[in-house]
């Protein structure tokens, strides 16, 4: 194999150096970047009180958690979950039912909803843990539809097509969180907690086990990783945070019915993960920002929104399968053979 002469051009070298130095610069001052962006985000509501802008930010935080939860499943352990909307649905409905029927406190319900969703996730994953990813993909997809159909038809519990009305807002020490500014801070805090916990988890033994399963399941098994147990933990972890996100969502909209949790919602979250990047913490956040921004941008031509996401997914898979900010040094970044490149190489070899 010969060295590609285009690599030796000065411009190419300079280009790769700038990217590298930018990356190392960002990594070096990572802490300052984080603190700076957190500061900006936390003082932002002081300057604007327009509920539209704050609402968009709330969506971005919420979907950062959802896409991040999906990313821990798809990006970190290389499993296929397509039914994240189902877990979102379970979390939201458990919050709504417990707060309206059982009149429980929001802060107690929040972890309970997460745990319920994690148990549901375990139940979904159990029959498929020992097989290849595709079965898990279909079963989760089916689960998402089943969850929605149950929410639509189990009228005595979920209100059926009427949904659940009048979900009480959360309170802190008697102070009710009502406006979008309050919810902005609630979502920001929970998103930061999610990011912090996830960053600790993926650097722990568990997270390393997940990544080894993603890279090569057989090899990690032969090195003593109990793969099916770690995959189950991974699935439950992702489902837990999706449930938390659902439980946060229900009091924000104050009325839920089954139309919030269609398959389109699942594709929406999946496109965030794919466009933003798989296998990194920042990836889903980037995806959430891009997709939510596109949603607002394309609002006048609503129907073309999903077409745009679909095209973006295909483009990403063709040219950058790990996504914009994905893990470049992993199996999610491996492209297929590209016919064009193959042709070019063979032509060059023929000339040489």
């Amino acid at each position: 194999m010969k060295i590609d002469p285009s690599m030796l051009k000065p411009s190419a070298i300079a280009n790769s150096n700038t990217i590298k130095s930018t990356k190392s610069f960002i990594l070096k001052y990572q802490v300052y970047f984080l603190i700076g962006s957190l500061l900006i985000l936390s003082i932002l509501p002081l300057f604007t009180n327009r509920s539209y802008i704050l609402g968009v930010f709330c969506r971005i935080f919420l979907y950062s958690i959802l896409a991040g939860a999906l990313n821990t499943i798809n990006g970190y352990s290389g499993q296929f979950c397509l039914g994240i909307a189902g877990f979102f649905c379970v979390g939201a409905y458990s919050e709504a039912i417990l707060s309206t029927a059982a009149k429980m406190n929001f802060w107690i319900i929040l972890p309970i909803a997460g745990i319920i969703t994690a148990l549901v996730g375990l139940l979904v994953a159990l029959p498929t843990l020992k097989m290849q990813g595709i079965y898990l993909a279909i079963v989760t997809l089916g689960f998402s539809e089943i969850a929605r159909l149950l929410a639509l038809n189990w009228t005595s519990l979920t209100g059926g097509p009427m949904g659940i009305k009048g979900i009480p807002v959360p309170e802190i020490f008697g102070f009710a969180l009502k406006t979008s500014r309050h919810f902005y801070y609630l979502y920001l805090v929970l998103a930061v907690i999610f990011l912090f916990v996830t960053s600790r988890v993926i650097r722990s033994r568990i997270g390393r086990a997940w990544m080894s399963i993603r890279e090569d399941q057989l090899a990690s098994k032969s090195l003593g990783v109990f793969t099916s147990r770690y995959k189950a933990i991974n699935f439950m972890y992702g489902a837990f945070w999706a449930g938390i996100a659902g439980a946060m969502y229900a009091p924000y909209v104050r009325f839920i019915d089954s139309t919030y949790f269609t398959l389109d919602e699942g594709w929406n979250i999946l496109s965030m993960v794919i466009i933003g990047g798989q296998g990194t913490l920042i990836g889903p956040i980037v995806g959430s920002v891009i997709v939510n921004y596109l949603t607002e941008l394309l609002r006048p031509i609503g129907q073309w929104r999903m077409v745009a996401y679909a095209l973006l997914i295909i483009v990403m898979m063709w040219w950058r399968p790990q996504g914009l900010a994905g893990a470049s040094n992993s199996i999610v970044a491996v492209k297929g053979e590209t016919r064009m490149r193959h042709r070019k190489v063979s032509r060059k070899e023929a000339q040489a």
Partner: protein
Amino acid sequence: MKEGSYANMWDTPPSYSLYETGEAGRMDYFLNQLINGICQGAIYALMAIGYSVVVGVVGMVTFTHGEVIMIGAFAAYYMFFLSGNQIILGLIVSFAASWVLGYFVYKVCYERFFNAPRHVSLLTTIGFSMLIKNLSQIIFGPNQKPMLDVVEANFFRIGAVQISELQIVIIITVIIMATLLSLIFNKTKFGIRLKAVSQDKTASYMVGINVKRVAMLGNCLGCGLGGIAGLLLAVYYQTIQATMGGPLGMKAFASSVLGGLTDVRFSALGGLCIGIIENLGITVTTASFRDMFAFGFLILVLIIRPQGFVSKKGAKV
């Protein structure tokens, strides 16, 4: 148009009516549901045959099959609209439309990804199915369309059991298609190439088969069968809708799990089973739970025998 509304489309079971109430009426209802189940299962079987041909030959799992079926149904709708009730013409057109879509699916989702990790082509098929679904919602409109009557609704009665002419036509069409496919597979050189590619790509490459071309043609063939299944579904239910593809694709998958995703005969059996289970299931519950039975079947098969009920030769998916 919200996704929730396509469930309504399946809520109105076609062509059976007039039951007497009481014990005897209940038994007749059960038998009629069995007949309906067999007819619907025949359509599912055709879908599943197409799916397992695609998965076997290409070697990658697809999520676009539901959209392929939907395109077949719409092609038939417009053909019947233009030509009156020429059912043969409709069959040819829906086969051709789905064949063409299959070609695009191959070009976009498979051709570059034969050596890539599996999730890349899978996610591309998901993106492509989103694209087709939403584009056709824009082009054909999001609402249900009533299908034209192509077969007269005559009923034959055998005792209390009634079977419509339409159901007989559907079952006969499926049987003819399955026979044609098995003739292609066993008697022609092309079919033998297809079988070789689905069993071992490297070995068939070594004996001089143009693997990519055969994979493309096999994919188109499977998609074409899906298109015919779409026509039959549209005629049977009398409605078509741009969002109908989603649950159908999943049912095709669930059926072909019975044969380990690649075996044609067991996929057909799986489709028949799902059709019967669904129609008997809604005698016990309400019709809105219809889509759940396919998943119940899928999960049951995955628990009992996840690798399918055939011993595998090559062709791992």
